[in-house]
């Protein structure tokens, strides 16, 4: 069945951009304002799912050749890695640290290891979400 979904496709092209921006914004703003790794990951993941729903799976997979299982695995690796990494600095497991750094062009920025931890959370959420939805919808 051929569905006439020109309107959907056109809107999604714009909307996905907005959702992705929002997702990235939410991820970074999580430190001091509402947001964070989990919600950022959810928003980014739902943008990708929206793409899959609007276009077909093959098209998107050609454009985004990620194996989302591996994305999730990378996320878990990052999260547990930062946890274990703190042991190498002779501090308790899962210690997080932060500091203010002078970066060219951007100026003084607050950098934290929690960001890496949260990036792991976000990647796991994206990977798992897309994996689950893809494997269910591909099943016949």
């Amino acid at each position: 069945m051929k569905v006439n979904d020109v309107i959907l496709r056109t809107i999604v092209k714009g909307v996905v951009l907005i959702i992705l921006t929002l997702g990235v914004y939410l991820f970074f703003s999580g430190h001091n304002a509402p947001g964070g790794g989990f919600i950022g990951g959810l928003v980014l993941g739902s943008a990708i799912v929206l793409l899959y729903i609007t276009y077909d799976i093959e098209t998107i997979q050609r454009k985004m050749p990620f194996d989302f299982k591996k994305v999730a695995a990378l996320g878990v690796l990052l999260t547990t890695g930062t946890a274990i990494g703190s042991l190498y600095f002779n501090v308790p497991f899962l210690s997080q640290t932060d500091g203010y750094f002078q970066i060219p062009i951007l100026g003084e920025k607050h950098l934290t290891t929690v960001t890496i931890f949260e990036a792991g959370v976000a990647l796991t959420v994206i990977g798992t979400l897309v994996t689950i939805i893809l494997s269910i919808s591909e099943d016949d």
Partner: protein
Amino acid sequence: MPIEFIIILLPFLFAVLIPIFHRRLSKKFIGWIVFFIPLSLFILLTTFIPRISNGETFSNTYEWIPSLNINFTTYIDGLSLILSLLITGIGALVVFYSNFYLSKKESLHHFYCYLLLFMGAMLGVVYSDNLIVLYAFWELTSVSSFLLIAFWHHRKASRAGARKSMTITVSGGIAMLAGFLMLYTMSGTLSIREIIVNVDVISDHTLFIPALILVLLGAFTKSAQFPFHIWLPDAMEAPTPVSAYLHSATMVKAGIYLVARFTPIFGGDMTWFWLVSGMGLITLFWGSFNAVRQTDLKAILAFSTVSQLGLIMSLLGFGSIALYFGYTTESIVYTQATFAALFHLINHSTFKGALFMMVGIVDHEVGTRDIRRLGGLMSFMPVTFTIALIGSFSMAGLPPFNGFLSKEMFFTAAIKVGSLDIFSLDSLGIFIPIIAWVASVFTFIYCLIVVGRTFTGKVKPDIKERDLHEAPFGMLVSPLILVTLVILIFFFPNIIGNYLLKPAMTSVYPTFPVDEMTPRIYAWHGLNPELWMTIGVIVLGIVLYKLVKYWVRVYKWFPQKLTFNSIYEGFITKSEDFSENLTNRYMNGNLTNYFIYIYIFFIATVAGYFITSEAFVWNTLNDSNVDHYELILIFVMMFTAVALTFAKSRITAVLINGVLGYSVAFFFVSFRAPDLALTQLVVESITTALFLICFKFLPEIKKEDSRRIWKISKGVISILVGVTVTIVGLAVVHYEKVTTISTYFEDAYHLAGGKNIVNTILGDFRAFDTMLEVVVLFIAGLGVYALIKLKARKGDTDVESK
């Protein structure tokens, strides 16, 4: 890093590396690379011999969990050196042999990985001074043995044998752990050496006898002592190199090692003496008696191993009597039993290893191990025949082979201990030499069977068609080295005695002077009772071997139903059936039932707590005002919740559920929790989308069981759950039994450097939760993926039951 740690860790390291790199390696080389590990370890260990025989010991500690007294302490003394030389020496020979025995088509990387795992674990057992570390390595040997027995896991018998050995040895291991913990409670230390030093403290403790019995359970299950011996014959499903290595030369000796190691602690006690030597004697007799009726060569050797292990065990029991007397010039003779035990431990490994390899050669070249189909191989396989002859005659206790020496010493010890008058030996002692002698007669008979039925007589027709020839030279090397040792040890036994057994005796009798405990071993010691016993064994053995078909009927007298095997089988099947019935009764696949269990449990615990603890306080004083739009939201939610129960199709239910979810999000907005609102909105959207994707796979809602009582009970449970949640919600506001921790989180910016409290909790204060949640989420995702993608298609065969 101390050299002892390297010795233990090297096999483990290669056990990890081989599966990783096996694709890069040609299958021809894997075995040879592995071969150099035990070989180099063996050579390294031989350099310890001079120092150890001078009475030195080596110990190193790596602090592992010091707060629990669990430290990785290695201890090399005479006793552990003997065992480790056997592990590496026989290990090298076995790997060399299996290079020729195993086809290159087998999954060699698995085989050698398991074998190295075992080697490392076994070295860990004999070197550990800490009880808990010893236990960990002990169970690891059981696991690697399980993996090796099930190496040909497509065969049902292999899997059954592996499971049987695992069940029995691990159960014994757990009993042993309990014994270790009792020892720890009594002595306050986990170090074996420290326990030995403080032995006076524990010997009057009430836990002394229970600990003794539990530790012995571990040793008896591992060393296949009666009635736990039933796993060893079934373990013969493993490839023959494994049987030669684990199930005759090393792993089954772990129990012997444990008994020898704990003799300074428990020895001298009557319970210990009777359990160790009594069980040993029964095993000795039962093993040799049953070996005679077997028709599979490997089964004969398995029962003979059981019987020989019983022999060594009973010798250790005899030897422990010396500790009852303490050191005197009279009591020193009883230590010779232990000396004989350790001597026979080495001898048994040499001749039994050779015999197993011999059986492997026969199996490999002729294609069967059944003595009813074998015969007359002598002229085709002269070298294999020589190996079999030397190995068997050594096992039977004939000169000029090493088995003769230790067998004579066994008879000496049996006669000496039998004539004692302590531990009610004055009435029962007479049976000890008798049982020893009768068992030796059977040993002699099955040794004759192994050689006679395989190599002499006529060639049976069904193997005649095969092209019978000698095995390739590579396969003969290892057994030939072993039988050469068998002869060399006979002629130069005192080298072994002075360099290996002498320091080991100090480990068993730390308080005795070492030089007096080391007798000179003579092949000829006059016409004494021991020699007459041996001659009697030979004469009666030959007579009975010739008449075997007349008295073999004896075995039919035993009722089939009462064998230990059928008791074990019965126990396993009964317990499986029972648990299956029990599980099927409540796990009936009906989702409604599962929810009912969860909710009833929830109501019982949560509501039960609030009712019994009277924590439920409700006053309206502190409540804030309820706004109009909040009221509207509440009514919307109440309406949708009720409407949900009347939904006739799934799509309606999904959509109404979505309305509920979004309303909750509105609540979050109105209570100024933007994070929660955002998360709730996104989660709700994704769940709804997911439902819609899954929708096409779901069947129509079925008309439910409409019995009135069923409906009412479900209604009651639902209402109770709602009431419980409401009560909790209302009571939490006034709950004062625990102090709140929110003030701690309010200082988030200083403690964690973030202003968003929720996220500092997630990412810092309670990051452990988050980390594990991420892992759980990932595992759940993989689970969904695996369930959908990897489910068995129609027509797929069940790979398990071949």
